């Protein structure tokens, strides 16, 4: 069913814009060139055939050792057609930034803040890109693979004799 989406993308966009598409375990996914991230998302939302008008999830994957290192992952759903799609866009480690989709789905606001907080991916055009889960004083992006699991950064001096 959701094959419709991939076909539609194939019709609408050229190879340089949609890099790769596939389907696994019943999930349809398309890898998008970061430059066309927002355009593709907007098309999928507004196109009457796909009508992926519901924002589901936006996150990031750190594929350490691969270039580009990060993937921004967006999940969309169509309430009317009952199909969904996963969009991925590679983001390099040197300049981890990509267009924001907050203007398309206001719900993306917090999800993009979280991706920035935990992975350090910057979203161009985001209204206020602050940390959301970690505190502002925190240094680094903890969900990156090279961030130590127990890299605590206390805000408060420990009591004497307390063992960490």
């Amino acid at each position, binding site marked *: 069913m959701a094959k419709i989406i991939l076909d539609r993308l194939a019709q609408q966009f050229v190879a340089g814009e949609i890099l790769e598409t596939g389907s696994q375990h019943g999930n349809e996914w398309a890898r998008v060139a970061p430059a066309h991230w927002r355009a593709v998302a907007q098309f999928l939302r507004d196109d009457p055939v796909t009508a992926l008008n519901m924002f589901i999830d936006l996150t990031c994957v750190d594929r*350490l*050792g691969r270039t580009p290192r990060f993937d921004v992952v967006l999940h969309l759903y169509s309430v009317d057609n009952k199909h969904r799609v996963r969009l991925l866009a590679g983001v390099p480690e040197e300049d981890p930034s990509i267009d924001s989709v907050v203007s398309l789905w206001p719900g993306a606001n917090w999800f993009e803040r979280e991706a920035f907080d935990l992975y350090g991916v910057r979203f161009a055009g985001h209204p206020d890109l602050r940390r959301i889960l970690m505190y502002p004083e925190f240094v680094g992006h903890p969900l990156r*693979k*090279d961030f130590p699991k127990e890299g605590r950064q206390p805000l408060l001096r420990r009591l004497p004799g307390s063992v960490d």
Partner: protein
Amino acid sequence: MADERQAPSAPRANVKMVIDGQACEFPAGLTILEACQRVGSKVPFFCWHPGLSAPAVCRQCLVEIKGFPKPVPSCYTPVADRMEVVTGSPKVLDVRRQMLEFTLLNHPIDCPICDKAGECMLQKHYFDWDARVARNDGGKVRKAKVVDVGRHIVLDQERCILCSRCIRVCNEVARQPDLVMAFRGDRQLLTTAPGQRLDNPYSLNTVDVCPVGALTAKDFRFSMRAWELWATPSVCPGCATGCNIEIHASRNLIRRLVPRLNSAVNKYWMCDDGRLTYKHVADNRLAAPTVAGAPARWDAALAEAARLLGQARDKSPATLGMVLSAQMINEDLFAFSRLATECLRTDRVYLAGSPEGWCDNILVSADKNPNTTGAKLIGGPTLRTAADLQRDIEGRVVTALLLVGEPDALGPLESLQTLVAVSSHQNPPVAAAQVALPLAMWAEVDGSFTNRQGKVQRLYSAIAPAGQARPGWETAVRLARALGAAWTYGEAKQVFGDVCAKVTLMSRADWGKPEMPVQLRFANSRG
């Protein structure tokens, strides 16, 4: 392994055959097993080892060949023209299962107390190829569980699956036949040859090749479970050979060293002495900077050191010397020799190191320093020897000394007016020094050694430096800045880049890709 790096159809290929319906070419003389590995069709094995001969005793590698009446051991049979091999036919799988069932029949239920559990080939093959419940839970043949066969090794004869790998290691690698099989049938057991003990200098390799927990190292057994270890690639600091190793560490402590394949240097092996070099890392370390024997903060100690050295330099650079050690990594050597020439303006750079030791024509070399070649390349022709150093100290030619690393023999230190030591361990020079700065060791830093063949080999940081110890090049940079130079090194990689640029013979060396430590439980079982 090494073979897999070559393309499946090498130019000298001249045997055309079919493996699992896939047509391919191989050089004659290759065994079917190796051929299968090249084309990526999986065949299990216990007794075969890429670095040893193949006796075909375990019968795990059986494959079916069109026209042959029964399955043949692929580790033993050479490839031939127009051969059609099937590795996964029901018949083959069934035969392998039966063999495996035989192997498991008398295997003790030891996994919870077995050192090999987690990296055991028996576990792996059973789980990958069989994974069926047992058809018998009757009694098992009992054998000796603790046999002290050698200086480093304990043998559990119950666990042994009689693959004879260890015997071949002794015969073919150490060239010293210590182990033999005795008796027949289910009484058969591994033991030492009459009047022999497993005491050859490569005995611990038998522990690596043992597919099960029959042979265990006294040094490692019961100290850590295998799957808890984190593996980091590195190079053995034991001698100038530079065997490629994996550091197995947990909770910031090195637990053991195991050899890593490098067909150009050490193949699959390393010597017993090399394996125990790790003990030095956690032993009697200099944890914090000291000024006049008392612990001090880094910046204070650095300032004091810079002051002393600057004083000595301004008095007369000719009497100011620097001692480097052939135990240090290339980056440290380079940074410090640059410090000597640019900041201390002295050419009195001496190279010290551990004294010569025993050697053989297998792996062990007499030079017990891992980086003599690198030190000589970086130090250049003006590099002076430890003998010069002793003479100069006794002759009062040198009155101020910056001591880096751990030289073995120095002259009478009390004759020195200024002594600054950058050392990894507590030792007499440190005690005598006005300022001592802790130095991170080979297992704690990113760096490189240049072995006796001139190969530049990477070290990766496996554990955090002891106490407040810092890499040598970093200390050098901070000293240089304190002495007024503006160096911009931020990480070892940049220093290495300069080394390659300056030292012509290392110009083609490569820093290599970053390696994260991997936990063994999530790496594939080895063996």
